């Protein structure tokens, strides 16, 4: 089965084609980051307006790049949630109606399921069961994965997501939106020994996270400094990044011990962070667990992962009715296994 995937949950418009035999045939992402940069964050109405302008031209381009005739499609998968309701609706409306016009099934996909399955597009793919750390601008969670649709939430952020904290602290440091990757660059010039930030919630048991305190800590550090020069910006960026990464490292180590998992999947936008990958490589060496990542371009939002998750479920016979909807808030553990064939 050949599946068209559509992603419009936030500020990236994505389209991809995945084929059960041939694998990923084509994928395209249009990033709206420039439209939102001047506002310092994603403006939902602007995101929705950009999606409806860009989605169909991108879809047409992707089908051509994959040499797929419309009638050769076997299903359409789209991100149903979680995400911005208005943005999700654009993808859902176009996806569902296109599938209806082509007489093929459609399925709404959980965005975080798509992220955690994304490393399965790589070689070698992780086998089930595994532990997954999902770290993005919208989520930070540790999930025990027994199979497709078999997810147990072990811990999550009680406030800001890790990526959100990166973006907010980047803003405090005077970096343009989206600041996460820029903060990583700035931290390279930082002195690791000048400041030491706390590792939130690591001194007590459990696998939950809290990152909003680090934002306050950053602010206080900057206020306490004599001047706001390049060195203090870099040193602060370094201390903040070290604290987040160390916290993620400690919680992953704890989760691996607790579950006895031998494989760790790390996905979501923050999983593109090089320092995080270096630190988790140490964890792989000491724990014996193997770590799996998506390729860098599939760490952030994309439709390849949606097409793949859609293919898994659609080819098992799962599909939506003609009534479509989006689910802006949608806990991952509510998902179920696809029907047995």
């Amino acid at each position, binding site marked *: 089965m050949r599946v068209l995937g559509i992603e419009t949950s936030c500020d990236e418009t994505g389209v991809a084609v995945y084929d059960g035999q041939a694998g990923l045939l084509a994928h395209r992402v249009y990033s709206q980051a420039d439209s939102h940069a001047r506002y310092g964050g994603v*403006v939902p109405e602007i995101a929705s307006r950009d999606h409806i302008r860009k*989605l169909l031209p991108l879809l047409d381009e992707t089908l051509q790049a994959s040499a797929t005739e419309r009638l050769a499609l076997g299903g359409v998968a789209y991100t149903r949630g979680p995400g911005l309701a208005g943005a999700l609706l654009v993808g859902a*409306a176009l996806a569902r109606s*296109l599938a*209806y*016009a082509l007489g093929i099934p459609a399925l709404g996909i959980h965005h975080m399921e798509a992220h955690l399955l994304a490393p399965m597009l790589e070689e070698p793919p992780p086998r089930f069961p595994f532990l997954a750390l999902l770290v993005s601008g919208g989520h930070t969670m540790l999930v025990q994965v027994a199979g497709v649709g078999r997810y147990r939430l072990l811990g999550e952020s009680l406030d800001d997501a890790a990526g959100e904290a990166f973006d907010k602290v980047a803003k405090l440091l005077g970096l343009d939106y989206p600041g996460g990757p820029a903060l990583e660059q700035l931290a390279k010039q930082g002195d690791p020994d000048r400041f030491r930030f706390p590792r939130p919630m690591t001194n007590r048991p459990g696998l939950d996270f809290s990152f909003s305190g680090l934002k306050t800590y950053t602010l206080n550090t900057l206020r306490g400094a004599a001047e706001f020069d390049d060195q203090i910006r870099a040193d602060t960026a370094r201390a903040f990044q070290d604290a987040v990464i160390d916290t993620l490292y400690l919680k992953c180590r704890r989760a691996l011990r607790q579950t006895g998992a031998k494989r760790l999947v790390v996905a979501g936008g923050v999983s593109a962070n090089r320092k995080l990958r270096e630190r988790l490589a140490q964890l792989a060496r000491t724990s014996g667990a193997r770590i799996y990542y998506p390729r860098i371009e599939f760490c952030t939002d994309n439709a390849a992962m949606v097409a793949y998750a859609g293919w898994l479920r659609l080819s098992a016979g799962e599909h939506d009715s*003609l009534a*479509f909807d989006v689910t802006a808030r949608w806990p991952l553990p509510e998902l179920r296994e696809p029907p047995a064939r």
Partner: protein
Amino acid sequence: MSDPRILAFDTTSEACSAALSTAQGVFSRSEIMPRGHTRRLLPLLDELLGQAALQLSDLDAIAYCRGPGSFTGIRIAAGVAQGLAYGVNRPLIPVSTLACLAQGVYREQGGEVVLTAIDARMDEVYWGVYQLTAQGIMVAMADELVVSPDAVPVPPLLGSWYGAGSGWSLYKERLVARCGKPTGGLDGGRLPDARDCLSMALARYREGALVGASDALPVYLRNRVT
């Protein structure tokens, strides 16, 4: 030439409606639903096609209300229109929601000049002034715009004219102060109806005013959103 087969639909207000022109006449449905258009729209279109024993691929064109109206509603309409049209490779006909209101006043009350106003929130209305042509189709006398009810542009009004749309019920006094009392009648409860979208689309189809799926975009009128 036989009558073109056109499917028209509207999701821009708290109604959800669809209409289909066929050789056997027009089939139509309309339901009131403040929310949940996405759950009802495609089943509604499917029922209508089933009733007429037609497939989407039998259509000559697809028409939709392109706005102004609820931002979410007009994006649902444009998104669904794009998906359907791209899937069966048919052209689209975007129709103004304000024009639909005016056409509806003509259909039901015979009004030939209609001042349409839809509540745009933030103390503004979406405003359009429409006049009937000899062919029985409403055309705009000036560009549609989003404007304060106290500042709507009013053309010289001769003879009988109507006021229609939610703006007229919400800002009745202020619009009357600006335009005078509608001499024909006032229909502040009027919602856009796909039957009127269809009438306008049939006229446009004959003129060849069709667009490709990628060019079928919403018209918001309010372009400042931050």
